[in-house]
């Protein structure tokens, strides 16, 4: 690995920028994501900054089962992100569809549409769990910096 890519990888690990996208969640996980960014839990101390546009983001935090209305939008947002990109499924619904599995308007978990790097279960995933998940994702990137999308389709 060249020195430049080493520096890029280091800076990426020190300050992952996240984009939060609600794919049809009940708001519980979304609120817990915001709660993780506010003073009690303060995800920002790990350099995590919430961004407003997919083009700035390294990590896509998805919450909720993918509804059929949002499916194409989710794919579009994912495609707008620049490589390397990582997707974190926050909450049981995002991991597998959860209680909404089988509903007529639900396509399933996030991984039925886009590859997911980390799964954070819980209904809702507590801020502590979200921090744990994000830190674990960062650690996994540190261990094998060459793999672009751990857990992703090869």
């Amino acid at each position, binding site marked *: 690995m060249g020195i430049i890519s080493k520096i890029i990888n280091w800076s990426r690990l020190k300050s992952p920028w996240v984009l939060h996208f609600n794919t049809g969640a009940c708001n519980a996980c979304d609120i817990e994501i915001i709660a993780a960014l506010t003073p009690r839990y303060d995800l920002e101390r790990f350099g995590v900054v919430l961004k407003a546009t997919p083009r700035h983001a390294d990590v896509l935090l998805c919450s909720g089962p993918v509804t059929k209305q949002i499916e194409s939008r989710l794919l579009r947002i994912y495609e707008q992100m620049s490589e390397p990109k990582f997707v974190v499924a926050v909450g049981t619904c995002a991991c597998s569809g959860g209680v909404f599995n089988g509903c007529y*308007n639900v396509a399933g978990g996030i991984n039925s549409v886009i590859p997911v790097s980390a799964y954070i279960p819980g209904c809702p995933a507590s801020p502590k769990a979200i921090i744990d998940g994000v830190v674990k994702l960062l650690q996994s990137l540190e261990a094998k910096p060459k793999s672009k999308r751990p857990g992703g389709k090869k």
Partner: protein
Amino acid sequence: MHDVHDFEDVKIPIGPQHPALKEPESFLISLRGEKITASSVRLGYNHRGIEKACEERTYTQGLYLIERICGICSHSHSTCFVQAVEEIAGIEITARAKYLRTLIGELERIHSHLLWLGVAGHEIGFDTLLMYTWRDREVVMDLLATLTGNRVNYGINTVGGVRRDISHKQKEEVLKAIDILEERTKYYIDLAKGETTLIKRLQGVGVLSHEDAEKLDAVGPTARASGIERDVRKDDPYAAYGELDFKVISVNSCDVYGRTLVRLGELMESFSLVRQVIRKIPDGSILVKSARKVPAGEAVSRYEAPRGEDLHYVRANGTEKPDRVKVRAPTLANIQSVSKMLEDRYLADMPIVIAAIDPCFSCTDRLVAVRDTKNKGSNTVVWETIRLQGIEWYKNKGIDFTSLNEKLTKLS
């Protein structure tokens, strides 16, 4: 040189993913210069099909699904649903259970209003307020976690009562936390009444006159800020509200500033309600036994959620699964008034005006619009067709209510 009037109105799509919006919904705004001339909202990104899914589940299973309609006012939805089921089944819950439901409901209102205050601060660029209120909100989240076992989606309701009792030690914890929160809220009230920047930014923004609020059927703090004293807790008391003493907060300023004051006032009322509940809560059991099957019948139940009146309709057919569940969440009642509030206003006011009704689109997305894309143009499907389609769909899945329905019609 063009004159600004030479231009057609500019149409700007906002959403479903947009920095100003926390949830997937989309607005189409027509602009002339900086001013909004027309706006329309497109919902449905959050539609999961909960009402239909409830028909496949038993009442107890449905209760936990209903709770997941919304992660902010989950207790509102589950209480509203369970009240309707209890009414059909003729179950009278114990007084202690009623007080516990009230307690959790008021704690939920406190967390929801603090959350709103932070979000409103964020929308007007006052992020310090967001950080302050969300820090304080953790106090009430801890309370809810100790009382119910989960921070959100408490799962405390069940048909016939509640699932967890409150201990003496927990009562003291609640009182202690309420004291802290009350002190903080007093600070926010001082801030709202004294901070010139905040007042200037919110006053006269998102005006909804008293008449318009009446006409558009606004509910909750949105209506109460336009001088309509409408509160289900007072008008049609449920749970223990009939025995508790509280004021309905309303102001006449009709703008976002008024909505802020109403919510801050309601926070103070909620603290007093929580103290009263802790003082008055009677001893006794928290649960009455109920049968799995609910007799045929129908009921409408109302609940004053933090955002306004929540309405659930349940029809039972004598089995252990409901025949039909219908949810009218407060945001659906309020969303009509948003286009009125945005009329002839600046684009920069849009985020705070939308935030001021405290919208919750996961609550609202109960509707489906069927659009025929091949034939261009929309196609309206009548209710009866959808109903028949639903019956057919279930028949294919092996669930058939035909014989049962025939029996029911013979009976009535």
